């Protein structure tokens, strides 16, 4: 289909042809023609956010909970620069986004025109790819290619900068098929030879472990199914990064829990002591490895990843397999089955016995209290009261509460857990919950938040109220920037420099001011009823859960330490981080 139309109309047509039904945005001078086109149609819903960072995180929440790309529309200059944090977040966590930004007209570019910013320059390092479209005839093609790039290979955000005169000008529209994909076609099939070597290693391994990550979820439902089948069939233990939670069910019998800096004792020790590590769609991030030199010293390492640059970046692996997780796991399973489904049963027994012994350490234990709500207790109760809801989606902010949520909430399915992993963006969760709820209007969407993070994008409560999105903001309010405080207690002699807020708002009144419901709870005895009240309310809720102020998050592998060198509680923290470790983040 080729036909003349204005650039602005082409934008809307291209989105429709890409199957987009909702976009998140904020208007301004440089995108008015596009907003005018949006006004004159009903196929695409536009969610008006309150800040462009919110639009991007909302689109991330939408994308992660649906597996579809999120779409954002912002104006030039400040609109685009406000979006940068969200775009960087999406890049770090491999979230497919298509961000459309307005730009000053082509004849003003470079003139320091009003609301001009070098948007493609600013976003070049934080997008997977970006384009400035100066020719209206190239606009439709570029948008379609943008969707292709964002969603294929390792997903990520793309940005398309559209000058205002291009939005007014007439050009020729082309549909997605005619636009083609250009030459960008990442390889999805893994090398058979190497996959076979991995199967051989699986057949004899004495202490194998699956270490999985967000790549499994990005690869799609088939990847999750294949992973589950492989884990059940081999009987190998499995752990996951923060980003990969839900790919294997938390109730599954081979589940060791999350690994890494605040991961479970049994997961980290199993990683350290294994003789075969099968890394599936994870990237040996520094939160996972601890001290690289001591990382899993006696193992053969296999790494399945669609991004060749992830392989051998920090950890040298023995069996690199570049390809899409689903494709590779399918081949892996087939080859393993065809060779007689062999595993080293004799050796797996003592390996599991060792793991079970590590489990008895009960690394998530904490000192309960009848007077104050312990944050861990609040999450245990939230879990108990919502676990049965298959349609439960959890978002988080960044800090201690995020790690406790990862430790204490169980995820049975992929795409039900949205958290800012790579960038660690405070202010992610509130808008992300908006995006998730837009995608799943009937679902239970909870943002487990810290009061500090939550304030960073709290304006999006306005969006939630405007679109009647019943998001539940479950704030673990310790009146502290708890994670910063924890590091100060470990590293800086308990000098708590600027890690608490002196003037927090009254969250109940704040909820009411937004037109939402506010609930406050400070007594452990009232907690269940208060959570029930939150769940029963048909509308957005701010739940101000006043928790213990000085609780620290354990287990913890301090920076610069090895996996088998974990802190299990406050008693272990004396002098835990040496001066060398202190330079790390």
């Amino acid at each position: 289909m080729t036909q003349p139309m204005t650039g602005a109309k082409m934008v809307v047509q291209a989105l429709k042809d890409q199957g987009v039904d909702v976009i998140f945005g904020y208007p301004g001078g440089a995108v008015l023609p596009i907003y005018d086109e949006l006004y004159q149609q009903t196929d695409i819903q536009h969610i008006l956010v309150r800040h462009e960072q919110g639009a991007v995180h909302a689109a991330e929440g939408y994308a992660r909970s649906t597996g579809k790309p999120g779409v954002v529309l912002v104006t030039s200059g400040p609109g685009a620069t406000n979006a940068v944090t969200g775009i960087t977040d999406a890049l770090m966590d491999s979230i497919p986004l298509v961000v459309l930004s307005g730009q000053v007209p082509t004849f003003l570019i470079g003139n320091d025109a009003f609301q001009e910013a070098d948007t493609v320059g600013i976003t070049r390092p934080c997008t997977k790819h970006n384009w400035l479209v100066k020719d209206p005839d190239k606009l439709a093609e570029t948008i379609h290619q943008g969707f292709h790039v964002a969603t294929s290979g390792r997903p990520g955000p793309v940005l398309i900068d559209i000058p205002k005169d291009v939005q007014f000008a007439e050009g020729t529209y082309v549909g997605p098929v005619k636009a083609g994909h250009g030459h960008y076609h990442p390889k999805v099939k893994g090398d058979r030879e190497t996959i076979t070597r991995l199967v051989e290693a699986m057949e004899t391994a004495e202490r194998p472990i699956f270490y999985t990550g967000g790549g499994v979820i990005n690869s799609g439902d088939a990847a999750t199914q294949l992973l589950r089948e492989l884990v059940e069939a081999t009987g190998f233990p499995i752990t996951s990064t923060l980003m990969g939670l839900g790919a294997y069910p938390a109730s599954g019998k081979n589940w060791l829990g999350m690994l890494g800096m605040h991961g479970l004792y049994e997961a980290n020790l199993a990683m350290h002591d294994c003789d075969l590590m099968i890394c599936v769609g994870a990237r040996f991030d520094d939160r996972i490895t601890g001290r690289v030199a001591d990382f899993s010293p006696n193992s053969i390492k296999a790494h399945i990843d669609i991004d060749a640059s992830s392989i051998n970046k920090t950890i040298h692996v023995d069996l690199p397999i570049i390809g899409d997780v689903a494709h590779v796991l399918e081949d892996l399973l087939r080859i393993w089955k065809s060779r007689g489904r062999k595993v080293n049963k004799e050796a797996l027994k003592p390996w599991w016995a060792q793991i079970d012994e590590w489990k008895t350490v009960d690394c998530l234990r904490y000192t309960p209290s009848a007077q104050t709500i312990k944050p861990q207790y609040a999450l245990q109760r939230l879990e108990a009261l919502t676990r049965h809801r298959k349609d439960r989606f959890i978002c988080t902010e960044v800090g201690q509460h995020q790690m406790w949520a990862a430790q204490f909430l169980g995820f049975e399915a992929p795409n039900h857990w949205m958290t800012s992993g790579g960038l660690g963006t405070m202010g992610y969760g509130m808008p992300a919950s908006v995006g998730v709820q837009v995608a799943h209007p009937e679902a239970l969407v909870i943002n487990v938040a810290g009061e500090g993070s939550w304030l960073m994008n709290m304006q999006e409560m306005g969006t939630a109220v405007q679109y009647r999105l019943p998001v539940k903001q479950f704030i673990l309010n310790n009146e502290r920037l708890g994670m910063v405080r924890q590091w100060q207690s470990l590293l800086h002699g308990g000098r708590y420099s600027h890690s608490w807020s002196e003037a927090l708002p009254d969250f109940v009144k704040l909820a009411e001011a937004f037109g939402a419901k506010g609930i406050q709870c400070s007594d452990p005895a009232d907690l269940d009823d208060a959570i029930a009240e939150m769940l029963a309310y048909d509308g957005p809720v701010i739940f101000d859960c006043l928790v213990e102020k000085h609780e620290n998050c354990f287990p913890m592998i301090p920076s610069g330490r090895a996996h088998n060198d974990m802190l299990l509680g406050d008693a272990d923290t004396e002098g835990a981080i040496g001066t060398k470790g202190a330079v790390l983040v």
Partner: protein
Amino acid sequence: MAPLNIQQGTSRHSAYDLRDPNAEASERHTLAVTVDNEAGVLARVIGLFSGRGYNIDSLTVAEVDHAGHKSRITIVTTGTPAVIEQIKAQLGRIVPVYEVHDLTVEGPSVERELALFKVTGTGEKRVEALRLADIFRANVVDSTLESFVFEITGTPQKIDAFGELMRPLGLCEMARTGVAALARGN
């Protein structure tokens, strides 16, 4: 258990490894990168090197296929073997990049660079400069009574050597193109 017949990995450095990242020896590699000649593509390549802390010793770029709008970027870089592998993988990830070739490991290749040298002087020094230029097969592309501009092509080492010799003879300015390289044979 029978020992796994796989050579075991060793850890490489990262920002979170406190070992000296320079402990491994650096190598010089010449990379040839074919890219779409679209706006910003050079900025992407340069941004990758600066953003990730890689070295650029020399970089040349020009469109080599006008009909297909493709450019060839030749990059000379130094790094440990692991870093060189990372650089290639990171380059390969850039959307407008078609191919990345490591000419240093893919077989014999030829490397040439062009340079212009301005040498001023009179008398014996001027004669000596001309004589050396002849030995190096440099051409005189401009001359006044007190100056020459020499044009020389060759390997970067040859150009370095010529520059060293010209220095005491009145070298006052030079311009170099950076390396262009091709694999030998077919």
